[in-house]
């Protein structure tokens, strides 16, 4: 097992390096120069040069990359050009806020998907199955930001039940999920964000459980006289590794793909940070955020892989 983990981690290293190269290169695809937003509309060349030099953008690219990488490894992703705050702090703070949403969305999605997917798989071919399949396809077909806008108008503006934006009445630092006053801020973003995972996890659950129910051993279980409930329990345990894998992947996707939902709800997460960094071309933040999100995704995949290995006795542990 440890050997396997070590190998998987080792395998992630070249990917990590590739990711850093990509993140670094990305920035230089961009038209315009990286410090533009700092400058007044009519800054002179002399001023631009000075600022470029201050931020180290005057050196050759490979050198910039190495310097950046060297510091990144020890956890220093530089300072935000816009705010002068350390990028690492900014990104981690934002990321922890996004994790609230992603985890909430995945858990909600899992609950719904688990109930619906299993029911559909059990009654496959029936009207229930068709309904669930339709629901899951609707989930992955709805533009989630559109849904978010509609929810805000209905529940925040018209009914005034839920707050329209932000994370908690006093901002993310005092956010307390166990208090209703705070919790209500998370409801609409989580629902909006869970649409796609609901669709995908339901589909996976349905097909995985259905596939298991089509296996020969299900006959054995029934032949043993087990109740249908027990049969379904067996089927779920068999399908679980596959469902867990998809769940993990969805969690990873949400962490990186929260940009639209966070924009709608003004949620101070990584997507919001990223969109701001893109708009203001805050190079260190852009690099840092993409890097950390990608590494998180790699890490999530790794965890999913390991969890799957430990849950599923069929996978041989090398």
């Amino acid at each position, binding site marked *: 097992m440890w050997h396997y983990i070590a190998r998987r981690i080792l395998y992630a290293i070249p990917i990590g390096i590739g990711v850093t190269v990509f993140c670094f290169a990305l920035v230089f695809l961009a*038209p*315009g*120069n990286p*410090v*533009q*937003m*700092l*400058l*007044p*509309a*009519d*800054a*002179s*060349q002399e*001023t*631009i040069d*000075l*600022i470029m030099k*201050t931020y180290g953008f005057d050196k050759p690219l490979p050198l910039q990359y190495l310097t950046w990488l060297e510091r990144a490894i020890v956890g220093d992703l530089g*300072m935000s*050009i*816009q*705010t*002068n*705050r*350390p990028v690492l702090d*900014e990104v981690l*703070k*934002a990321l922890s806020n996004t994790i609230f949403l992603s985890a909430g969305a995945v858990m909600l999605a899992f609950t719904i998907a688990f109930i619906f997917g299993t029911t559909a798989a059990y009654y496959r071919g029936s009207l229930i199955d068709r309904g669930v399949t339709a629901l899951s396809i609707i989930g992955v077909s709805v533009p989630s930001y559109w849904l978010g*806008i509609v929810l*805000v*108008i209905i529940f*925040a*503006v018209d009914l*005034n039940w*839920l*707050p*329209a*934006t*932000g*994370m908690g009445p*006093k*901002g*993310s*630092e005092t956010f307390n999920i166990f208090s209703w006053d705070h919790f209500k801020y998370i409801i609409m973003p989580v629902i909006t964000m869970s649409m796609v995972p609901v669709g995908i996890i339901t589909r996976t659950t349905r097909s995985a459980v259905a596939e298991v129910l089509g296996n020969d051993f299900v006959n054995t279980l029934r032949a043993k006289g087990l109740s249908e409930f027990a049969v379904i329990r067996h089927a779920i345990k068999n399908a679980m590794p596959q469902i867990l894998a998809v769940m993990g992947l969805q969690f990873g996707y949400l962490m990186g793909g929260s940009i639209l939902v966070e*924009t*709608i*709800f*003004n949620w*101070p997460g990584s997507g*919001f*940070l990223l969109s*701001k960094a893109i*708009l*203001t*071309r805050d190079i260190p933040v852009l690099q840092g955020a993409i890097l950390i999100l990608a590494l998180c995704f790699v890490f999530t995949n790794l965890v999913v892989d390991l969890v799957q290995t430990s849950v599923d006795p069929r996978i041989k542990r090398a």
Partner: protein
Amino acid sequence: MKGLFRTTKAACLAFVTLGATLGLTPAKAESTLRVAMTAGDIPDVTGQPDQGFEGYRFVGYTLYDSLILWDLSKSDKEASLMPGLATKWYIDPANSKRWIFELRDNVAFHDGCKFDAETVVWNVKRLTDEKVSYFNPKQYAAMRTRTVNIDHAEVVDPLKVAILTKEPDSLFYIQMSFWMMISKCQFEKAGSYEAYAKMPSGTGPYKFDKMVPRERLELVQNTKYWNPARVPKHERLVLLPMPEATTRAAALLSGQVDFIEAPSPDTIPRLKSSGMTVITLPYPHNWHYQFNFVEGPFKDLKVRQAANYAMNRDEMVEMLGGLAQPGYATVPPSSPYFGKPVTYKYDMAKATALLKEAKCYPCEVTLAISTSGSGQMQPLPMNELVKAQMEAVGFKVKLEVMDWNALLDVTFKGREKFPNYHAVNVSRATQDPFSGIFRFAMKKQNAPAGGNWGHYYSAEIEKLIVDIYNEFDEVKRDAMIIRVHEVMNADAAMLFVTHDLNPRALSPKLKGFVQAQSWFQDLTPITVGTTN
């Protein structure tokens, strides 16, 4: 079962009563003003704010004062300058490059340190002298156009400072209205700008309380403010960045904030029907295109005039839901520098005739525009309307759409780098004569050195500007500034479209706000009522 239900109901009632009692004891409750800004982040609190003039509006003039302040107490005329931390300023009669500022006595920073001449000199060096340890490169860059003429500052006596310029500059004192005075001793206590950002200290009407980056900045009233009339009428000011217009409107409608900046025109009817107060007022803002005077059809005065005649500005105002006024010149008519410029009223026939006369029919032009940006209002629909109107008279318009940064890049580098663009659409603040007028017309400001993107040149303006900088008599000087403004119109130096009306929406529980004709606003007189 029935009994149980009754008990539960009773318990519920008890709860409600308890809640109501708690809710009805607001004697202790703080009065809080919550503002949704258009910025994507909390502006820099360490002195010169970023995020454009909005940063100055909410973080600059709240935490800090400058030597000269804007008088924001009236809404009937364009805001003018008034004494701030300086009580008086004048040019040294013996030296036309030496400005003297007499400082206000008995002003203390929030941290208790005294404000004096030494602090002012320290603050000047902070943004001009690369060699001092407290030099701030980022703010230096942002302030460069305002500081470029400064040679050095010196203490004359504890309450008097002199600032020497490299060239005579009759307009120099205006720059000092943008210069935030931060506390030297607080900075020294903090040791760095990063640390200081967590404990900023100024002399302004609000004190820093706490900040959650990217989410909220909380300020509290400075009860010991030197100007008792401007001590805030509410105890706490909460500033929330909300870049999305629909989000801001939703936040106001759902009662999460009390005051929003720039609601989009189409949300206004809904805001009004929900009882919100929507305020609009002219202010020095110009939404226009700068022409390329070297390449393309706009070299020709007739084509420039044709484009101006093609603008149906009333239609634009209608599209913007009345949140703008027609733009016929660089500054709005309420500006003291407006004068009597030639105006190009909507006249399709004349426009077409001019184009034919210029032998440019159909006249193919390419405009560089952005999808969003500070002060750009609603660039997409507005540009589409401009395109439609120009095409109606015989232009053939191609819109080059880019994001705000890319457009800024085009603007910085000037027409030389982008000869294919015949005009760029970057809106500007026109608060002072230099940044509002001169920089678009001076040869010295030809891009990439400055704001004259299309290399407009007028011999008369060149001469006038030299005279203006050397004329320390305000009346004579202003007459010449007006002349510059008129010449630009005669030359059709820009495609004038509209001036923003700076809409804001306020919750009905706010009272006492006076909107000034300025980019800056004074929030201190606002009282927050308890009614919803």
